[in-house]
């Protein structure tokens, strides 16, 4: 290579920001306002720790650790391949990779896999009664978790190195549910109870070494890890991850600006966005989110047991105003329907706008007021329940203002984010309307349309009744069941069916969908190779720090 060219290249390399140059080792410093509860991967249902579990634990299959649409793909992880379903979609036989070790040095066996599946029921996994209820033997496990064996449902063959799953009926989303961190494989002797702050050894590239919810969580390399699949569980760049808790969101931003931390988990405060985007544009990453912010209306009690009242709210809602509260047009898009844009089954549809069609343009207050007059609900007292996290109080206050503008007498009640989500689910609390977000668990329309609106998700009197609106319609449920069945053999046709179901749900108006947010990550200057997965968001094992 001629010298001048070498000199030019060297100059170019030096001109690159330090974070652009690959680097192994170092400590990735994360910060959040608070810890997210237990570090038991089969109990914790938060995005905050799913990011940690993704690098510490493996399932038989997983979502590809990459960016873009490919991150929705399911790839084999501890299993050698993704098996072809047998018995009409009711049987799956996985072959376990050989020689993989847990962070305590023990080798992973099929018995560990079977034990991990029964542990889902023993620790009362949040979705044991829904996602994993299709396992043969799950009914007995749900009835008496302590003696759960999943007899006939999950069969380990140590000699052949296989694990066979038998389902009671075909489930098109079985692999998605198995790829979720809940189904991570743990040692067979892991305690059959929520471990709280005690780490359980996993097979990932990293392991949690200490956890104090009041202070921090420390993650280090798993000394027994040898990379078997870069797309399933890459080795990672940094040697250690220090996660600090108890810093306010305003201070988090300032600390990341000053390189004291590399990444802050919480949404940036709205008043810092302009400053961040102007002064630190290169450190901002905006990525898609499959999520919605919506206002579920209780269809079983006044005033929203009246459909005209629910339609009135939908027509009156200024979704552009809600987008502004969230942070502006670059951070959210108005949405009228249940499914978020770009999601499987999504076809744009907006009946609740000035010019109904495929896109929301403006609220139609005249129509909203006419519907209110027809509903006979004018003057009804309404309380909007919102939580105290991020922009949610402002959205709750705005919603109350909208309700007042069409004739309700509305106030907002702000509850701690620790209790609001369960409070609004429990019918005993007689919540009329609330504000809440919903993020996808995996890329399937049923994760919105079935989980949030089917009769099976409505459990009166329970804190775990995710059909918050209490919408239960037999015709709707039949359409959902047909789409789920169709998805097993013909996903494309199923997505067309989901689009129709989406319209059906939107027309019934058990909610007022506000907008689909985008994910904004703010990282330090020293962080490089930012990689965003649709499932796990920022992949901690992909980034490097200088």
């Amino acid at each position, binding site marked *: 290579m001629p010298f001048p060219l070498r000199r030019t290249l060297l100059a170019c390399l030096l001109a690159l920001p330090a974070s652009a140059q690959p680097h192994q080792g170092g400590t990735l410093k994360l910060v959040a306002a608070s810890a997210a509860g237990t570090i038991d991967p089969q109990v914790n249902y938060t995005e905050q720790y799913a990011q940690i579990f993704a690098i510490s634990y493996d399932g038989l299959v997983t979502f590809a650790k990459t960016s873009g649409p490919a991150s929705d793909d399911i790839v084999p992880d501890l299993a050698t391949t993704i098996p072809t379903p047998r018995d009409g979609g009711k049987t799956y036989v996985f072959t376990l990779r050989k020689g993989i070790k847990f962070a305590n040095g023990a080798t992973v066996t099929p018995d560990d896999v079977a034990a991990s599946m029964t542990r889902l029921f023993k620790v009362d996994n949040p979705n044991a009664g829904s996602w994993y209820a299709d396992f043969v033997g799950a009914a007995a496990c749900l009835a008496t978790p302590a003696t759960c064996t999943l007899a006939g449902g999950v069969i380990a063959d140590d000699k052949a190195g296989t694990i066979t799953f038998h389902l009671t009926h075909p489930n098109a989303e079985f692999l998605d549910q198995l790829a979720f961190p809940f189904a991570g494989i743990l040692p067979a002797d892991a305690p059959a109870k929520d471990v709280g702050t005690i780490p359980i050894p996993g097979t990932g590239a990293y392991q949690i070494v200490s956890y104090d919810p009041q202070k921090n969580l420390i993650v280090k390399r798993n000394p027994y890890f040898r990379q078997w699949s870069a797309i399933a569980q890459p080795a990672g760049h940094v040697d250690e991850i220090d996660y600090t808790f108890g810093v306010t969101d*305003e201070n988090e931003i300032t600390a990341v600006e000053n390189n004291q931390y590399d990444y802050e988990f919480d949404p940036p*405060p*709205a*008043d*810092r*966005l*302009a*400053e*961040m*985007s*102007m002064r630190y*544009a290169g450190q*901002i990453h905006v990525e898609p989110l499959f999520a919605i912010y919506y206002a579920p209306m209780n269809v079983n009690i006044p005033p929203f047991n009246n459909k005209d009242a629910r339609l009135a709210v939908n027509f009156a809602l*200024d979704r*552009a*105003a809600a987008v*502004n*509260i969230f*942070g*502006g*047009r*670059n*951070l959210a898009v108005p949405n009228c329907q249940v499914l978020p844009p770009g999601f499987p089954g999504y076809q744009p549809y907006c009946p609740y706008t000035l010019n109904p069609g495929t896109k929301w343009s403006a609220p139609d207050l005249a129509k909203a007021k006419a519907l209110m007059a027809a509903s006979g609900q004018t003057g009804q*007292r309404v*309380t909007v329940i919102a939580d*105290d996290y991020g922009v949610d*109080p*402002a959205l*709750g*206050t*705005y919603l*109350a*203002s*909208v309700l*007042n*503008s069409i004739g309700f007498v*509305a*106030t*907002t*009640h*702000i*509850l701690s984010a620790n209790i609001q989500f369960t409070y609004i689910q429990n019918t005993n*609390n007689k919540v009329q309307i609330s504000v809440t977000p919903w993020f996808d668990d995996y890329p399937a329309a049923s994760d919105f349309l079935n989980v949030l609106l089917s009769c099976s998700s409505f459990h009166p009197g329970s804190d775990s009744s995710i059909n918050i609106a209490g919408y239960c319609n037999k015709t709707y449920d039949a359409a959902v069941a047909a789409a789920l069945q169709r998805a097993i053999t013909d996903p494309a046709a199923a997505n067309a069916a989901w689009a129709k179901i989406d319209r059906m749900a939107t027309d019934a108006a058990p909610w007022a969908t506000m907008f689909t947010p985008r994910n*904004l990550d703010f990282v330090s200057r020293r962080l490089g190779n930012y990689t965003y997965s649709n499932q796990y968001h920022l992949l901690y094992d992909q980034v490097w720090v200088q």
Partner: protein
Amino acid sequence: MAAAALLAAIVLACLLAPLYAADIAGTDPFASNLDGTITLAGQPVEIMQSAATGFGVTPIGPTWHAQYFLGADDQGRDVAARLLYGGRTSLLIAAGATLICLSGAALVGVIAGFAGGIVDTILARALDILWAFPVYLLAISLSAVLISHGLQLGPVSINADSLLIPIAIIGIVYIPYVARPIRGQVIGLAQSDFVLAARCLGIPRPRILLRDILPNIATTLIVFAPLMLALNMLTEAALSFLTIGVQPPAASWGTIILDGEGLLYTRPMVAIAPGIAIALTVVALNFLGDGIREAFDPRAKLRINK
């Protein structure tokens, strides 16, 4: 005197809130106004201003004109108008709570001190128990329960968003702070010569209570009034800041500070203005309290005369 004048000015300004909002500012302090505009120097100006980068929307700052004099909050509402309405709410809650507190304290203190015996023991221990709770913890606990479901006591029904709830909670939690000195004073009065003389003359106990005891504790209650007003105002602000006092879209100085918390970096005036209002009012009340105490306390007069 200056304190009383300042307090009177604050009260008057707050009482005139509707006049200001409707006739001067022309804004609705309780309705969100996220896509509205105002005219400044002949130019239309957006109340919520989008950043050029498309990230973030910032409310308009102080205009120092009639409309949005102190700027807007994160809902696009006029902070000055909300400040005045919020002042009405804060003063109303503080006054109502003070009334409940002083009445309750007088009742409990007089009964305990005058009746003595087992009645005194029970009431005094009850006050001790209430006193033992950290006052904010007690207020927060009561608020969290009552603001969720309101209050249903037989025929009495209070909505969850009613101001009666923070008024009652704040009034009740401070009863021991006034009742204990009142009880002590009544015990002293009950042993005084003029009460003993009245008893010897066969005057009925209720009459002694009305004619000899109550007039003598009235001074104490009057001295406590401005101090409790100030304390109740601070408590209301704290509870509302913690979202368990006044419920949106209603405003109090505490809720406005909460609204401003998320705008500290860009629009600090939203939090600063109610903070200053609270500080001025509380200082004025404390000075007024000192003045009243000196006016009614003969020992203070003696000290001044020396």
